[in-house]
């Protein structure tokens, strides 16, 4: 048994284009937050503390997508300064809801939205972190699930494999004992192609899954689009279903583009 005091692993929490909801999940960990603070040194977390220490970091938690030239450079600095880089949430892992602009003209949108579009310097696309640097682990979700975050941190600290399932939301839906809303009510549900993690919350409240956790390990999106059609969804509705928080995740993106919208 080790008795000597090891230096606590240094953690940095970094933000790119995002809503802060995923970082907040860490602050929302409440009773577990103390344990986290005891187990690691939270060296850089502007959302929580003004004390911002420099790297290198043992673990970087990265939230948000890359949308500006500056972002695209900064993520490389973070990667260089971090042993492990973990992306957290739909923005960081797939480009986020802001990736909806990837199908539009970003300059055109800036002109519509901002009084002085000349102040806006943005990339054409909102892209996930993994398109820019190597990512060691990813946590899906919009926002991420607190239990999964703690599980991942605990696993990294203990040097064991994290239990982060890659199967469908349906598995959690059945474990929970919910009645399938798609079969029993004809409500379109993305559960069969979406990765587990949320605990199948939406079906438990009589709604179809919105796909917050992105594509599962082997998503059959074509079959689900077909099924949505049988359930009476219009092509536009089907395309909108794919274009949510994980619109730019490759399989969802492909599915949305396959829909023939008249």
């Amino acid at each position, binding site marked *: *048994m080790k008795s000597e005091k090891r230096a606590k692993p240094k953690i940095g929490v970094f933000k790119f284009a995002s809503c802060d909801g995923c970082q907040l999940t860490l602050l929302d960990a409440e009773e*577990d937050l103390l*344990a*986290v603070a*005891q*187990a690691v040194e939270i060296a850089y977390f502007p959302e929580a503390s003004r004390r911002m220490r420099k790297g290198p970091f043992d673990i970087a938690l990265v939230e948000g997508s890359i949308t500006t030239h500056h972002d695209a450079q900064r993520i490389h600095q973070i990667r260089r300064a971090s042993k492990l880089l973990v992306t957290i949430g739909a923005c960081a892992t797939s480009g986020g809801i802001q990736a909806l602009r990837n199908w539009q003209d970003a300059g055109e949108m800036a002109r519509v939205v901002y009084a002085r579009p000349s102040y806006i310097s943005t990339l054409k696309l909102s892209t996930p972190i993994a398109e820019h640097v190597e990512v060691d682990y990813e946590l899906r979700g919009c926002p991420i699930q607190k239990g999964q975050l*703690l*599980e991942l*941190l*605990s*696993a990294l*600290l*203990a040097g*064991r494999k994290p*239990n982060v*399932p*890659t*199967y*469908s939301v*349906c*598995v959690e839906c*059945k*474990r929970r*004992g*919910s*009645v*399938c*809303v*798609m*079969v*029993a*009510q*004809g409500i379109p*549900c993305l*559960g*069969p*192609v979406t990765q587990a993690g949320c605990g199948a919350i939406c079906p438990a409240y*009589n709604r179809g899954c919105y796909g917050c956790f992105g594509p599962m*390990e*082997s*998503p*059959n999106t*074509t*079959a*689900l689009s077909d*099924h949505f059609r049988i359930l009476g969804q219009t092509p536009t509705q089907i395309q909108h279903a794919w274009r949510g928080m994980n619109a730019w995740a490759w399989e969802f993106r492909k599915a949305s583009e396959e829909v023939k919208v008249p």
Partner: protein
Amino acid sequence: MRASSPPREGVLPRSRLSALFQALQEWGYEIIGPQIRDQAIVYDVLDRAEDLAAGYREEHAPGRYRLTPRAQQKVFASTASIHAWKRFLYPPEIKLYQISLNSSQAQIESLATPVRKRAFLGVRPCDLHAIAVQDRIFTGGVYRDPYYEANRAATLLIAVNCDEPGATCFCGSMGSGPSATHGFDLLLTEILEPEHRFLIESGSAAGEAILSRLPVTPPQEEDRTAAQDLHRQACQKFQRFVDTNELRELMYAQAESEHWEKVARRCFACANCTQVCPTCFCVNFEDSSDVSGATAQRWRRWDSCFHLSFSYIHGGSVRTSVGARYRQWITHKLASWWDQFGTSGCVGCGRCVTWCPAAIDITAEAKALGTLTRSERAHAST
């Protein structure tokens, strides 16, 4: 023979059904039975006979279920409900044990869930067979599951014969319904005309003991005739069939079939079929620790052969294509289960047909695979 042996049969008027609840509760049983939740009939804890889902009709089709009210006040109107009884005997998730580190000592705490005396009320004949199949798996061999065994020993099975098979039921083909012959503590036949009543038969000492406390009258000729008529009518109502003749060989012959890729185009690999199947038993053991590293737990969670991670060994998953995963599942259910456990892995409850969101129908797939083998054989012999 004892002079005053307890009654083995009796007739209970519908109006006195609460007496059954009372007797069970006095004996300390928690009653689990059909009730309405989220627009479906599910099995859960019942406190009173009034909470049973009377006066409803279920509609079953591949990938489709609807519950609608009907005038007739039949009490046991549902077929095998979405969540099988295995939920209670073999829960979806249990914490097996916890290890805590105190100073320099590791303490191991076993966390087997406390066992409750439970009465399952409204078990369909197919599910009696499914429970018998799981009994064989978990209590019949060298490797026994103590959690299942303890739950099972504390469970009373009150079965109800089926007179209205659902559109996805095919127990008639699998020899497991629509009427029960054994494996129950009590067996009910619900008779609606002329008076709404239950013909009750006991199948064990525990069943007899409960029956002896009920306000029943001895069955008359018309009660027996009515029950037989219901059975005959039920047998006529099946809409799905599986030809079990040579089924195992027919399935094995299709191991390399192109048919699997056809199914894979429709299948989500969502695992719903395995989660609702009353005989599927695959689980995963997951170890986790807390942030401080002071405690670690071992969990057991339902898993499925439809998951990539399920067949993951060094170097990758064994069954990468969805076709291979569907093949694994249906071949296990209909063929290799015989080699492994000496029974069919499928009892024909129809759950996987109704609750597959992609409307994949095991009876249709079995038929398609059988036809392929037969035509290949015919071809080879010409």
